[in-house]
């Protein structure tokens, strides 16, 4: 389906009454525009005859004022729905973007997406505003004039139609080339946007290594490409669209050169010929508008294709339908993993998890240890259902022993019971409070509790407005450790039954880490008792866990508590020795 038709169907149609009112206002405007010259002619006649003109003249003034009103109205009634359409399309686009999954974003550039949502979307507005107005104007003019021409003389009409049709064919060919160039231009704009974003985000490196000129050089290459595409488009456009006017001029010349002799020969009335020429003259404006319209249609098509491409990207959200049967409040669920194997969809040949078998009792604190690439984060992502694990491999066990396959559970309900803190501590440029709560109206008491549990309280004093400090893009105002603890506080703010912490303590110092691990363990053992997974490459963060899973190349190679794992040779004990640092003297007592 042509993207413009789709836009009209999905977004324009529901605003049809506004358009209809716009058409009425347009008719009124045009009616007045025709009426006023007639009225002026009458006044001049009256003037000539010496008749009183006061009433007529006042009528003209009044009509002039009315034109101001109805013309404004006609434009507003056509243009504002265009804005509405733009708004609604952007809203839907953003809502869709929020639902698209990581697999989608892996193949996208952020700057390009924003370029689509900001630059390409304007074509939707133009098409549904100015474009429609022009379409109505142009088609009315052509219908009326064309009809009258046909009535006057079908033969002469042919003289008019032939050059115009020829011009249209050429224009059509140009439009195909235009469409191609327009697509390139919009894609290039996206790339340029992305480059600007990427460079600004790496500004510390760019400036630190005095690489400004190199980056400017790359930018200028893109900018130059954009310029060349723009000029190519300008050529095509400026050559193509005035062709329609040229066509109508050729038609007039034809009328004179061929119709003139015919009229002289008596085949045609002189009056008809004159009327034809006059009619053709009235088409000049609409023909110019037609050029604009074709331009909007063609650019709008290229732009909207890019919008709909995003909107049509399948969400592939790992939905489920059953209600979540969790143990009653205050008890984390148990989990059973049976032969869980997993490979990411974009690399199915490389299994990341292999044959995991595991029983996690309700309310347990599970440590997950392994090297990079051992599958720790993947395990967390599967439990959080960023991707759905294969059916039947993960079973959730409620307090009353009710069992359900994880993937059948309603996704939103499942995530509502979860608290996931991913490895990358991502903060928004909002207040710290808003970042921690991520809800509309944060509860102050819970906020304080979460901040304090995440050991973030001492840092608040150093921030200008405490919890209300806006942290800057990606939390730039905070140190790495502060960012991590803010993300952790976000995880603790929620009253979750299952807490998944993916290596969230890597940037905090060890005293803070020890305090946090203690808090988390207390939380898990306390009356609320969520089930907790702590992923870390630092064994100090794991040693208080009820059970530690040791992953190696996607396999569960060992499990047990800290003591038992130390008691047998293996990856865990090796790492422990390594991290303890054999050269260091054994810790001795002494006041810190």
């Amino acid at each position: 389906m042509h993207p413009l038709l789709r836009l009209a169907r999905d977004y324009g149609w529901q605003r049809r009454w506004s358009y209809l009112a716009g058409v009425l206002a347009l008719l009124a405007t045009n009616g007045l525009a025709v009426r006023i010259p007639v009225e002026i002619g009458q006044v001049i006649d009256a003037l000539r005859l010496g008749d009183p003109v006061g009433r007529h003249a006042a009528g003209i003034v009044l009509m002039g004022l009315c034109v101001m009103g109805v013309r404004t109205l006609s434009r507003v009634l056509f243009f504002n729905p265009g804005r509405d359409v733009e708004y609604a399309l952007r809203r839907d686009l953003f809502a869709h973007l929020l639902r698209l999954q990581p697999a989608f974003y892996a193949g996208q550039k952020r700057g390009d997406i924003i370029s689509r949502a900001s630059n390409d979307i304007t074509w939707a507005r133009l098409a549904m505003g100015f474009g429609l107005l022009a379409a109505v104007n142009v088609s009315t003019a052509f219908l009326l004039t064309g009809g009258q021409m046909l009535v006057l003389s079908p033969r002469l009409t042919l003289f008019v139609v032939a050059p115009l049709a020829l011009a249209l064919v050429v224009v059509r060919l140009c439009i195909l080339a235009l469409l191609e160039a327009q697509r390139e231009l919009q894609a290039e704009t996206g790339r340029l946007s992305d480059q600007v974003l990427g460079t600004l985000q790496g500004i510390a490196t760019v400036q630190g290594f005095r690489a400004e000129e190199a980056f400017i050089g790359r930018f200028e290459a893109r900018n130059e490409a954009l310029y060349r595409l723009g000029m190519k488009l300008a050529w095509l456009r400026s050559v193509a669209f005035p062709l329609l006017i040229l066509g109508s001029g050729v038609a007039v010349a034809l009328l004179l050169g061929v119709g003139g002799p015919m009229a002289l020969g008596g085949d045609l009335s002189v009056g008809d010929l004159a009327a034809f020429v006059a009619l053709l003259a009235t088409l000049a404006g609409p023909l110019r508008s037609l050029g604009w319209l074709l331009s909007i249609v063609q650019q709008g098509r290229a732009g909207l294709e890019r919008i709909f491409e995003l909107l049509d990207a399948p969400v592939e959200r790992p939905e489920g339908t059953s209600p979540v049967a969790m143990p009653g409040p205050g008890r984390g669920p148990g989990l059973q993993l049976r032969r869980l194997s997993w490979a990411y969809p974009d690399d199915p040949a490389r299994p990341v998890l292999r044959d995991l078998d595991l029983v996690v009792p309700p309310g347990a604190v599970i440590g997950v240890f392994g090297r990079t690439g051992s599958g720790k984060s993947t395990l967390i992502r599967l439990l959080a259902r960023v991707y759905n694990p294969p059916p039947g491999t993960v079973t959730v066990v409620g307090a009353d022993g009710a069992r359900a396959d994880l993937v059948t559970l309603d996704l939103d309900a499942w995530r509502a019971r979860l608290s996931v803190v991913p490895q990358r501590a991502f903060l928004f440029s909002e207040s710290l409070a808003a970042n921690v709560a991520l809800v509309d109206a944060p509860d102050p008491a819970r906020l304080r509790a979460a901040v304090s549990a995440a050991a973030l309280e001492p840092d608040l004093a150093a921030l200008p407005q405490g919890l209300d400090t806006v942290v800057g893009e990606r939390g730039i105002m905070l140190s790495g450790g502060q960012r991590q603890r803010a993300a952790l506080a976000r995880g603790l703010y929620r009253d979750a039954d299952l807490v998944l912490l993916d290596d969230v303590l890597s940037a905090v110092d060890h005293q803070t880490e020890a305090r946090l691990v203690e808090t988390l363990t207390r939380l898990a053992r306390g009356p609320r008792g969520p089930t907790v997974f702590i992923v870390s490459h630092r064994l100090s963060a794991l040693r208080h866990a009820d059970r530690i899973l040791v992953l190696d190349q996607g396999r569960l190679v060992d499990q047990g508590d800290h003591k038992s794992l130390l008691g047998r040779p293996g990856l865990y004990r090796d790492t422990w020795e390594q991290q303890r640092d054999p050269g260091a003297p054994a810790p001795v007592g002494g006041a810190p």
Partner: protein
Amino acid sequence: MSRREASTASLLATVWPYARPEAWALALALAVTPLVAGLQLAQPWLLRKAIDEHVVPGQAQGLGGLAGAYLAVVAGAYLLQVAYTMSLSFAGSRTILRLRSALFRHLLGLSQRYLDGQPTGRLMTRVTSDVEALGDAITAGAITLVLDALVVVGVLVAMALLDPGLTLVALLLAPPLLFAVDRVRRVLRRLFVEVRDAVAAVNAFMAERIDGVEVIQLQGAEALAAAGFDQRNARLRGVTSRSNVFESLLFSMVDGFGSVVAGVLLWVAAGALGQALGLDGSLLAPVSAGTVVAFVDYLDRLFVPLREASNKVAILQRAVAGLVKITELLAEGEPAPTDGAPLGEVRGHLVLRDVRFAYRPGLPDVLQGVDLEVQPGQVVALVGATGSGKTTITRLLDRSYDGYRGSITLDGRELSSLRVADLRRRVAAVRQDQQIFSEDLAFNVGLGNPGISPQAMDEATRLVHADRTVQALGWTHMLRERGADLSVGEGQLLTFARTMAHDPDLILLDEATASIDSLTEALVQDALQRIFTRKTVIVVAHRLSTVQAADRIFVLDAGRVVEAGRHEELLALGGRYAALARAGEGVLGG
């Protein structure tokens, strides 16, 4: 906005240097316009001639010639039209090209302190769509406003010659129109500036949420994000809809006003107004019908360019709004420092004395009197709890952030007096967040520096064990945004290679804390050792092994150095360092 609005003229003056090289193209467009108009006027004249002199009287001879002449005129008009559009497009596109590059260059020269407070999505909007509006204004022929004005003046003169009295009446009616148009123009300009703001806000919000989309999804905060977006999106719709109303009003006002003036003039011409006001007939005597017909015709001609102009006024105001944002950025952005004394090769003797620093005025000092000294060739470790100021010190040393108090000297010269470009040639930093660009591998290592030979890049990558990545992927491999296709360890080694390839004398190294598998970890450790033996290094250390390799350790607490010495000495001291070392097996501080 509390600030006084810059005048349109002064804003255009700002941008004129970017358009000046194409002044000839603008002049060409301006010169072609009357020709186009002339050829367009010739068409009805030829037509009338053909019908009146040939068709009606039945004079066939010469009709063919007239038809030919008409064709020539039409073709000429077409060609001139193409020339006109192309010269404007050329001028507009070149101006955009230049302005965009200038803006980007300006952005790269801004201080990090300033950029910290600017959402990148917003800055991106300035470089892309705000610049675009300006080109539109040029291309859409804002320049022909001059011609429109000339036509208006010409018609007015003709009217005055015909009948000064009626012209006076017409002119008396003009002030309310001009007043109204000016009001609307001002409102439009303000609204368009608001539109630019709203667009930037929408883009910035969207950029950030897409960046953090996984967090939003996992936290189930989609509704909150959608609400936040809707607020900005609705603001944009509101302000654009309002601007629409005024834009429509501007056009319609000028359009309808022509009729109003015609009506009043007719009234006056008939002497009816004089009668109605009880005035003496001699003051405003009835005018001849011929004059009235001519006058009404002139009025039509007067309002055609006015209507055209009112359209262009809106386009111009939109461009001016974009310009307002652009000039704001050009003027307000705090530039990174560029002046200072030149600096050659350094030995790396660094002394900090009572250094204090706050990121922004009004924020508490992050450094509260730091004293430390680094000897040439030394490896110095900074250790301390998270937020103690370790990273901040390294940010001052390559002057990523300026404005420290106290004294920092490099080989005896005060840091703030040195030329930044020279300083950064000598001092390079490896930051904690690996900044990988979506460019190829070679560019990510050499950063386009022509002074770095391929051999130097090979050597640097081999030295820090990044050669495995290069072999696996190839130098021309395009890396993904933020190194998404590299492991953390690979990214780390790549940033080491980047630093070594640039061959600085002093390296600031913020040791990464993210998890790295033990194999890569061993490579990273070895790479670090190799760097340590070759360069003077200040390392923000997290690993005990790194700290032990240091010649001297400074322990920071709340923005001050509280302990200094070697690992064993500090352990023996049993103070802050000993506590840190005891708490973390193998890992220190944050």
